[in-house]
């Protein structure tokens, strides 16, 4: 299995996710309000988790899934902190 269907699907999915990250970066630069940029950062974190998972499938290592878990937790915490900062003017009371 030199050219397996799984490797082809991994290539196509990595390209599509990279295109999605470029679109999120466009919204991050362009975004008219600050909450648009916050939403773009949250979506970028989700896409990064998916890209790390694709790399873990390709390399057959279980180590990268803990990296994906750490990235997901950092994304959630940063989104919550920024949203709290925009709402209350203070991240941690």
């Amino acid at each position, binding site marked *: 299995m030199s050219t397996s*269907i*799984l490797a082809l699907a991994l290539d196509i999915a990595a390209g599509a*996710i990279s295109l999605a990250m470029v*679109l999120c970066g466009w919204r991050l630069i362009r975004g008219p309000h600050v909450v648009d940029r916050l*939403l773009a950062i949250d979506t970028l974190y989700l*896409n990064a988790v998916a890209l790390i998972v694709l790399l873990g499938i390709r390399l057959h290592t279980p180590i990268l*899934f803990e990296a994906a878990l750490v990235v997901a937790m950092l994304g959630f915490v940063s989104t919550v902190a920024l949203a709290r900062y925009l709402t209350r003017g203070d991240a941690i009371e």
Partner: protein
Amino acid sequence: MTLHPLIEWLAASLLLVSAFFLLVGAVGLVRLPDFFMRLHAPTKASTLGVGGALLASMLVSAAEGRAGFAELLITLFVFVTAPVSANLMAQAALHLRISGTATEPGDAVPERAGPP
């Protein structure tokens, strides 16, 4: 190592579906005209896309003979925290009085009724 062809095709189709949903979420983030419309596209479609990629990863790792507990943990974490972060972003937008383009500028954000 060679996977079973059925598992390989199933994982490949799951990966393609997840990439499609992630791309749809990003296109919706770019194309929709209003923040409250834009909030819909990534928070649902991208969550489903990440879930599909993790499901394919769990399938491949189970076919290779190791249990994917980390993938299951990431899936549960993403599915729990995505609505919470979307709710907090919507609260921030309501607090900042972001007006929607689909409604009149005067009544974009309705006045909240105070406590009785």
